[in-house]
């Protein structure tokens, strides 16, 4: 079902910021992975009106990549035309201020260019909206408040309540994006919009080169005698000096383990 077809004033408006990605192996332009997850999250929400916004150049390569998002079930992408070295944050902020969506979703960082992941924060600061990172799911949007699940390291989740309008970023902990269908991708269209761009001057001063492998950290042994050096080289990985409970009753053993689990805070 195309999502932005029926217009309704009551349903909350969700805008998804999409960018042109970069395939890590073939180096072709593609839909960016995290942005596609953000689109997937918008599609999984009920009773909302989703729209896609992209700011960037308008050429054959990036248009083909953007069609990947259209193939997920959209009729149009709003394209804010900018030159290739431009800072898109002001133009995007202006566009969002005009569109006034309730929730803005985006990937955490771009796959091309600087890829600093700073854009959502810049938008939040210039619009004065709160920002939430690492979204795993949006539970509800009602009465100007969104309840969301935030993904934490080690597979943990945290529930947050955010006042809307707000910006939320999606990382690779969010559900994977659906496949892009060819037909809808061909039928969808890009609606262009002209907004003045600002050239990113700092970018010109940087030297950009393909990533080189980072040097591996050496294991430095500061030993004063030959025996210490030998021990460091031949040592097995050992905890060293662990507590051993011999001849303890099962209850005493369980008590000791329980105490350790409590101290480490893994019992919830």
């Amino acid at each position, binding site marked *: 079902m195309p999502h932005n077809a029926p217009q309704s004033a009551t349903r909350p408006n969700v805008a998804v910021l999409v960018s042109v990605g*970069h395939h*890590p192996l073939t180096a072709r332009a593609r839909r960016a992975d995290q942005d596609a997850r953000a689109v997937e999250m918008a599609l999984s929400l009920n009773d909302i009106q989703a729209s896609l916004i992209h700011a960037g150049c308008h050429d054959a390569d990036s248009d083909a990549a953007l069609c990947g998002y259209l193939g997920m079930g959209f009729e149009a992408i709003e394209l804010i035309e900018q030159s290739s070295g431009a800072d898109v944050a002001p133009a995007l902020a202006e566009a969002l201020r005009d569109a006034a969506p309730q929730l803005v979703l985006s990937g955490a*960082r*771009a*796959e091309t260019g*600087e*890829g*600093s*992941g*700073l854009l959502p*924060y810049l938008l*939040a*600061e210039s619009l004065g909206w*709160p*920002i*939430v990172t690492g979204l795993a799911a949006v539970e509800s949007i009602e009465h100007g408040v969104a*309840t969301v*699940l935030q993904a934490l*390291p*080690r*597979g*943990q*989740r*945290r*529930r*947050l*309540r955010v006042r809307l309008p707000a910006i939320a970023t999606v990382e690779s902990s969010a559900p994977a994006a659906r496949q892009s269908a060819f037909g809808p991708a061909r039928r969808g269209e890009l609606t262009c919009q002209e907004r003045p761009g600002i050239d990113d001057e*700092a970018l010109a*001063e*940087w*030297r*950009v*080169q*393909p*990533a*080189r492998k*980072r040097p591996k*950290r050496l294991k*430095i042994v500061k030993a004063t*005698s030959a025996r210490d050096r030998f021990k460091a080289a031949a040592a097995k*990985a050992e*905890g060293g000096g*662990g*507590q*051993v*409970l011999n001849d*303890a009753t*099962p209850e005493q*053993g*369980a008590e*000791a*383990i*329980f105490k*350790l*689990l409590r101290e*480490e*805070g*893994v*019992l*919830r």
Partner: protein
Amino acid sequence: MSELVRRDPRKEWIARNRLHPQHLEVLAELGGGASPSEWLGPNGLMRRDPHAVGFIGPNGIKRIDRSGAQQAAAQSSSRQAQPEDTRRRVEIEAPAFLVAVVPDMPSGRLSSHDRDLLGLARQLADAEPERPGAVLAVIFGEHKETHFDEAGADRLLHLAGEGFAGYMPEARIAALQSVERELTPRHWLLPDSTLGGAELGRRLAVRLGERPATQVWQIEADAASEHGWRCMARGAAGSSDISRTLPRVALALAECAEPVSETRHAAQPVTLAQGLPEVLGRIEDLGAVAVDPAGVALAEAEFILSAGNGVKDWDAYHHAAQVLGATEGASRVAVDDGFMARDRQVGATGTWVTARVYVAVGISGAIQHLQGIQGCDKVVAINLDGGCDMIKRADLAVIGDAGAILAALVAQVERYREQQRENRDAA
């Protein structure tokens, strides 16, 4: 005690005369108390008795330790008590500038990423020896760390308070802004980690109006730049390197610098003159959500209950994992025998786990299994055999029947849960 050598010619004469009735006592006395193998000869030369060297090892064979560790241990009562701390103490009274570091402090302690970051901060602070800067560590909320001095912090700003518990990025940014206003550090360094540093750093940079360098992995001195430094940062999802001048705010990756090891610093507490501002947060933390531990990937699980050949009652084991809220793991034997799924195998051929707490039930600890748990912080072993390798690796080992101990543990945790529930109902 005086270090002057006092010679007693009579005793030396007795020491030379092996037939003298007091020969052994005098030899022991001259040899520095416990070790009669060496003594000072009449010409000031050290004499040694090769028969008295060494000690009888556990197999009844004489062992000689050439490192001197054994003799040093024997003499320790008379000479030095323990090896001296050779690290240089550094105190910076009037720093020319400040380098602020905001460590992640996962579970209240400095992580290795935080230590690397403090090492990076030291590079920035110590660049000019005649005008040294000071490293300021800014810590939020409760913590358990006691070694900020060894990690390289000259100043420690501990922002305690209820307001920083849980997910409170807005309150933290407001506090960091007041640090900026009062102390105005020359550099801000934060870890670019998913534990919170990446988010906090970007928020801070945007609030201060600075363009940060993200994913920095190397810095080098460069006189042409504004602050005298260039940095190398990853860009474009890690596929390119950007070489640029180091801005005021930098977010650095792990292993960006060597951690401090040769010096100790003051870690002198500082406070803010003005109190922290009240912040009306628009993000409300509703607390952690219970996740199904079985659904968490084994490689990133926090708490693993792992079973091996010593487990006989598998239903009780699964029940225990469920009650404890632990992710299930297994040794290769348990998997090969068909008791556990292949994707639950821990070890060299299975998954390399990084749990904070790893409980090994009935696992003797083959070397392949021990490799797989190298990244674990605390290892608890429950085993019948007190001599196995897992016991040597474990921080806490309980020798006994695994089934009985697990049952007792489950009963204890259930009692604890019951108590918690009552307290919550009462409150």
